[in-house]
């Protein structure tokens, strides 16, 4: 755990907190981008080049852009007048804690299930590709199907909107 690690963690946490606490929605989206960038840096700190760059490409290049687009297209980006806390913040907190607990449990359990390795394995992009279309091809296809269904759904929703306004 070096100095750089703590710096990146501070950056990520600050970005995440700012994303929740800032009043202006576009500022929140930009702060979220900082958190994404921090996560990418954490991946790079773990020598996971592919995951880190994919994180930047997908989350900063696509997801963040879609978020700001959605904000600009759906409502005004002016700051909220009342507080930033939603009325259902307690329910949200419980759900977030539940999801975090499940994820943490899964991660800790997987550490016990896998054989312990002395050194971090050197993984090249080629290995990731081979495993992705070899052993994990079925999950990959399922994700692809899910994304296609989501895209078609989005198109159908957009089409419906267009007909109504005409």
């Amino acid at each position, binding site marked *: 755990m070096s100095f750089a690690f703590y710096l990146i963690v501070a950056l990520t946490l600050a970005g995440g907190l700012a994303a929740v606490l800032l009043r202006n929605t576009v500022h929140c989206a930009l702060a979220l981008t900082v958190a994404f960038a921090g996560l990418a840096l954490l991946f790079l700190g773990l020598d996971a080049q592919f995951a880190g760059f994919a994180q930047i490409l997908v989350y900063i290049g696509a997801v963040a852009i879609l978020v700001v687009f959605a904000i*600009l297209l759906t409502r005004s980006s002016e700051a909220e007048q009342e507080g930033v806390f939603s009325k259902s913040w307690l329910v949200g907190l419980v759900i977030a804690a539940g999801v975090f607990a499940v994820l943490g449990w899964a991660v800790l359990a997987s550490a016990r299930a896998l054989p312990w390795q002395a050194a971090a394995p050197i993984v090249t992009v080629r290995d990731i590709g081979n495993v992705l279309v070899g052993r994990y091809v079925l999950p990959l296809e399922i994700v692809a199907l899910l994304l296609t269904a989501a895209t078609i759904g989005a198109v159908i929703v957009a089409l419906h909107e267009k007909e109504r306004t005409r």
Partner: protein
Amino acid sequence: MAATPISVTIDQIFILFRDWLDHFLPVAVRPFAAVVLGVIAIACVFPGLFALTTVFERKGLGRMQNRLGPNRVGPFGFFQPIADGIKALTKEDVIPFRADAVVHFIAPLVLVVAVFMGFAVLPMGRNMVLVDMDSGLLFFFAMGASTELSVFMAGWSSRNKYSILGAMRAVGQMISYEVPLLLSSVSVVMIAGSLSLTKIVEAQNHYTGIFPHWYVFTPWGFAAFLMFSIAATAETNRSPFDLPEGESELVAGYFTEYSGFKFALFFLGEYLGMFSISGLGATLFLGGWSAPLSFLNVIPSWIWFFSKVMAAIFIFIWMRGTLPRLRQDQLMNFAWKFVLPFTLLNLVVTALWRFMGEGWARWVVCTAILALAYVLMGRTGMHRKKFGPRSYRYAE
């Protein structure tokens, strides 16, 4: 030490110079200092090239439009960028009263930093690459994707309708053309079998007789190169895809409200983006730093790399002087209904090329599929369009 031919020395002169400078330092800091020297070289060469390119562009466009272009400052106007730089530095930095000052300030910095990062993985000559990453191509695209956000930040924070319109156009366009840009590069990765740009160049650095094995000289490579060039032009917001900053429509698009040096930074970022995407195109399809004919390898590799980049820049300028701007719907239709399907088809053709093995059969089959698809898609795309006298809907 064995006598090295003079051509090899000149080829490696920058590496030798770096090592020579490096050996004055203590051993502990040498690797770090080597990287710093590389960064300094990149940070000096490309802005210098940018200054030259602005003159060439203005004089070239002037030539195409039957006028002289800048000719007052220095011999033939070649010191114009210096005057421009001094003007940009001394101009008042205006921030609009209603603007979001912090985001307005950060946007040009994010753009220039992200664009500069892309140069880190480009091999600019034999052994001349700053960081030789296993996933260099992915890094390049990751950095390219980060520039989109800075464009949005600039447009949104200015609180100006022209700016926000320009930013929305720019982001929509960049997202649409990023997909074919990536997919056309994927076909190169499929054949080279690596995401490392140095490995991709080495895979092309072979010769049959005197002719090189560049990917652009294969059917799939030629198609991918065309699609890559179209997508790269759109990605750098160059004419005919310069809708986000169309002067006649949007003043200057997303950087309308920038003045002084921040404006110069946007200008710099845009040209550096052109250099880096041209460098990537040269690396992926035109053999990077390798010579076009085997006996021309005597000429240093970095000259070839920069010649290819500058040739691409010339084509950018030429197109700007030639083609009219597209309309927004034409732009989107072109991206999603022609470029994207064609790149997807090209991926299949590339796989076919890979698995058909050596021989002339794959040349015939791949060329036939691509040519047929090109003609069919062009015909169906043009089918419903009526070409006749121009009609104006709103200005009759």
